[in-house]
């Protein structure tokens, strides 16, 4: 990646950027990227429509960004609004604003503090959410940490360590209406749940905390707590 033959470009008013190789691309006004973009940095502070796919070291959206293709980045930070119609591959994906991803997400680390809606599956080593999120498919992460501040849902959750707790209320901000995590199945090695609605929870060491409603818990080593659990059974140790 020779920085020398990668021109920088900036749109401060209204304009178009054609696809291609760039150094830093900044869209501070209103802009359209026509074609696939390969850039060192893409910053969207205004409003941008990106019509192709994006490959970049860093993508930052603090304004409004609509991406019609996939986004591949080492670092993808959304503090404004991002709408990705394709999938996302990222080393680190952070959403502090609002983000909608139609496809799937593959990330090393994913941090959600805002509102995030993902249509497909999520694969990450670390999934850390303290906002509101929805995952249409499987949320698969080594470590899943969820602070429930609003309505969170995933079709299924799987991983090694899964920790779901009610978020601490902020002094001046009221909670969003519904404060629950909803999932069909939750499977992991070590599981701690609060404020969770699930059909089946399976794991080795399972702890059920406050405000849960779970149809069935299957555990191999230990089950602690259990208020709100309809049925539980021990399965032979395999985990």
């Amino acid at each position, binding site marked *: 990646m020779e920085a020398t033959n990668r021109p920088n470009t900036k749109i401060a008013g209204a304009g178009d950027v054609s696809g291609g190789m760039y150094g830093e691309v900044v869209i501070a006004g209103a802009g359209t990227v026509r074609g696939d973009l390969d850039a060192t940095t893409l910053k969207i502070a205004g409003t941008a429509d990106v019509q192709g796919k994006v490959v970049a070291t860093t993508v930052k959206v603090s304004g409004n960004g609509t991406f019609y293709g996939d986004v591949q980045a080492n670092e993808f930070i959304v503090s404004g609004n991002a709408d990705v119609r394709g999938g996302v591959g990222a080393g680190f994906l952070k959403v502090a604003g609002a983000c909608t991803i139609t496809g799937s997400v593959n990330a090393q680390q994913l941090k959600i503090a805002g509102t995030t809606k993902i249509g497909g599956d999520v*694969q*990450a*080593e670390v999934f850390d959410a303290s906002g509101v999120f929805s995952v249409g498919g499987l949320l*698969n*992460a*080594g470590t899943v940490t969820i602070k429930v501040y609003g309505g969170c849902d995933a079709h299924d959750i*799987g*991983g*090694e*360590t899964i920790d779901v707790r009610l978020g601490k209320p902020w002094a001046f901000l009221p909670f969003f209406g519904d404060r629950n995590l909803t999932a*069909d*199945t939750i*499977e*992991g*090695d070590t599981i701690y749940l609060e404020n969770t609605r699930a*059909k*089946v929870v*399976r*794991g*080795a060491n399972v702890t059920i905390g406050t405000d849960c409603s779970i149809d*069935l818990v*299957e555990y191999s080593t230990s089950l602690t707590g259990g208020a709100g659990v309809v049925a539980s059974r021990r*399965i*032979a140790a*395999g*985990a």
Partner: protein
Amino acid sequence: MEAELISKKDLLLAKGISYGQLYRWKRKGLIPEDWFVRKSTFTGQETFFPKDKMLARVDRILSMKDEDISLDDIAEAVSPAPLPDTFQRDDILARGVVSAAALDLFAERHPGVSELRFAELLAASVADTLLTSGDAGRDEALAAIATLEEGWMACEKTNCDLVLLRKMGVSTALLVSTASELVVEGSAKVVARVTIPTQIEQLKTLLKA
């Protein structure tokens, strides 16, 4: 002709692995996405796997783990993705990866070529399998090489099988997706069906040895 399935729960019990391990392997691409079969049961949706393939794969991963091979390396070994390297004919022959007979067939199509790309090596290795098993004759093995070379681009992304059909002494080779069921007319016979991802796995094992 549906392959026998094993539920996720039974698999974990049988092999003594944990949910966490299985999800990690899935993330690392050690288990193909299309082996996860979701079915409705009385407890709701459950995940099943094709039993024989899955048990073999888990055994392979566990034994490689015992040898302290990293998950990324295991992923490369079991993935059907082609290797970027090219291979010297003499080297392949000396190491016994593909037999001389199969390489000669390949040479017939590409005279004088001494360096094989992965796809070409794969084609030669399939021909080798067909010849060694006695399922195919010389011309049929040659047809298999030609079909694979031409069809490789199409099947690189999907799991496919090479099928050899014979009817009244006339044979033809074709590529079909692994999951598909073949119905052929009564007088025709499926002589051989080689699963390409399995072949690639074996080939990679031989190359590593």
